[in-house]
């Protein structure tokens, strides 16, 4: 199986609106799918219970191929299961835009090159209006050629809206450095082996 991309520089894609707050990791991947011993092939299980509803946004063909999920506040709260990040990557997502994230999910996402983009509520509203339509109502009449695309640039730390306007956001500098260069965090941590050994000597 092909290794998933470990770096993130920029991305241009449609956005899928999942306009709910407190989307917990049990929704992203229900516990019954956690009886696996690998990371791959969890994509089809993403949002498995919500996908039973044919009206659910991810069941709509028009979003096929979209790589950005646009959601509300406290996305990824709850369980620490990294399977949530793996499932979103498996389902083709490379970024999640929200007004806030659960702490553990944010870390898991960053370690899987799934970029968590935190916007302010007013930025979020602007983006929603441009990329999705007012109040989250998807404008199905939008001409096909005008499918609104959003660009996320980790180098410049901006989300560029379909109108061309930039929304600045922040990512912690170390995670950004790792993502831009595809740097593996364990390799970085292993470079401190000597310091760790010294600590162990000092602390028993």
């Amino acid at each position, binding site marked *: 199986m092909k290794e998933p991309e470990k770096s993130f520089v920029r991305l241009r894609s449609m956005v899928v609106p999942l*306009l*709910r*707050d*407190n989307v*917990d990791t*049990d*929704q992203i991947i*229900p*516990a*019954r799918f*956690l*009886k*696996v*011993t*690998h*990371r791959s092939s969890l994509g089809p299980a993403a949002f498995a*219970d919500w996908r039973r509803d044919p009206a659910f946004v991810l069941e709509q063909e028009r979003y096929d191929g979209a790589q950005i999920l646009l959601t*509300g*506040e*406290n996305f990824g*709260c*709850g*369980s*620490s*299961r*990294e*399977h949530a*990040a793996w499932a979103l990557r498996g389902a083709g997502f490379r970024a999640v835009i929200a007004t*806030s*994230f*659960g*702490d*553990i999910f944010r*870390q*898991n996402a960053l*370690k*899987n090159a799934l970029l968590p983009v935190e916007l302010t509520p007013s930025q979020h509203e602007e983006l929603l209006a441009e990329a999705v339509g007012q*109040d989250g109502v998807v404008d199905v009449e939008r001409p096909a050629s005008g499918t609104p695309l959003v660009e996320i640039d980790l180098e410049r730390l901006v989300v560029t809206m379909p109108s061309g306007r930039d929304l600045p956001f922040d990512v*912690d*500098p*170390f995670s950004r450095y790792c993502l831009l260069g595809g740097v593996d*965090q*364990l390799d*970085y*941590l*292993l470079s*401190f*082996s000597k*310091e*760790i050994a010294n*600590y*162990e000597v000092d*602390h028993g």
Partner: protein
Amino acid sequence: MTPPRTLLDKIWDAHEVTAKPEHPSVIYIDLHLIHEVTSPQAFTGLQQRSLCVRRPDRCLATMDHSTPTFGQQATSHAITDAAAKTQLARLTENCHRHGITLYPHGSAENGIVHVIGPERGRTLPGMTIVCGDSHTSTHGAFGALAFGIGTTEVEHVLATQCLLQHKPAAYEVVFENSLPPGVSAKDMALALIAKIGADGGTGHAFEFRGQAVEELDMEGRMTLCNMSIEAGARAGMVAPDAKTFAYLAGRPEAPKGVPASWWRLNSDPDATFARSVTIDASTLRPMVTFGTSPEMGIPVDEEIPTAKGDAATRGKLERALEYMGLQSRQPMVGIAIDVVFIGSCTNGRLGDLRQAASVLRGQKIAPKVRLLVVPGSMEVKRLAEAEGLDEVFIEAGGEWRTPGCSMCIAMNGDQLEPGQRAVSTSNRNFEGRQGPGSRTLLASPLTAAAAALHGAVADPRPLLMSVGASQGAEQVHGQQGGGA
């Protein structure tokens, strides 16, 4: 002079291997707890890099999540779910290969990871403790910095015994005054989450303080710290005191005596917290949730609120109530339920079972209600059986199981049918948490037991009056000695 420090500062400073501006700190981890669900991919990663486990002596593994609580045997042979069986076999292989202590099914030490750490005396004051499980915050009850991590981080700890971490901000949570009878640590946690929201503690570590926290026994403090993550805080902690040390005394793997350093594990008087909230514990009532986020909780004797605020806030409540099959202005008391689950890393300890038994003793649960009581560990099971609690539950019409996460995670055979409603002593009422279509109402062991008797949500306090003085107010308060 060093500036005043919080408990978090003190533990953090003592574990910082390196600190560099604009970089996360390298933090040393004293204890790494491991279970079958979040570890296999980490061990695979280790193997792919040809790395070994740096400190197997600082790891402890158990089987709990995908573990059936029925028909468990000394080996995993009774497990019929092929995927779970594979996962458990992988844990056994991995622990064997790397020399990690594992408490498998059937061993006297087996149990839920957050129950056995303290029980064995592995969880100690001042430690840094991690596990691929968000309820690792439980161990903060001992004055440890304990938090949940993802599987990539599990791999990091296996390989280096360290983690790259940004320091959380300190959040003081004060519970003033004493709890009234019939109100327990679970109610404190649910009241806090209702007050500050499911993301109120994001980016922070809680320090629980105040008279009501000091008065909790160690099991109550574990319940309180356990639920920190449901308010968004990865860690929750309580400064250790004489109760902490008494709990640890004589535990199989705890050190003899009390190191002087343990007494210094508290926030300095002038230490500043990034945030603070105060709750008057004497005003708390038994809490129960009505929605699909732990923040949707109210006192059991109230009505479900009506939607207020903007469209998004109203929509959130309406959606939750629709899922739960409940309505605004409906009183909580009297809401019909199908199942009562007593157990989990939140409320599966001896004191929790004693509280539930105090309500159920000599009574019969309502017809058609299923009561599942799952001790948190083999040790809890043994102690509960020694004092006849198993008989209390069985005679009341309940099922007495072997340890595991059971119906809290519903990936082990214990789960609700779609549409069923449960009062559960676990920690999450998310959609489908207890099985697809399941509806969960979170509550304390006392409130859960009361619901089992009534077949509906009930206020446990009137039942406690009728239980009488012989049970002792102490037991009702959850002040009993914290088990063995």
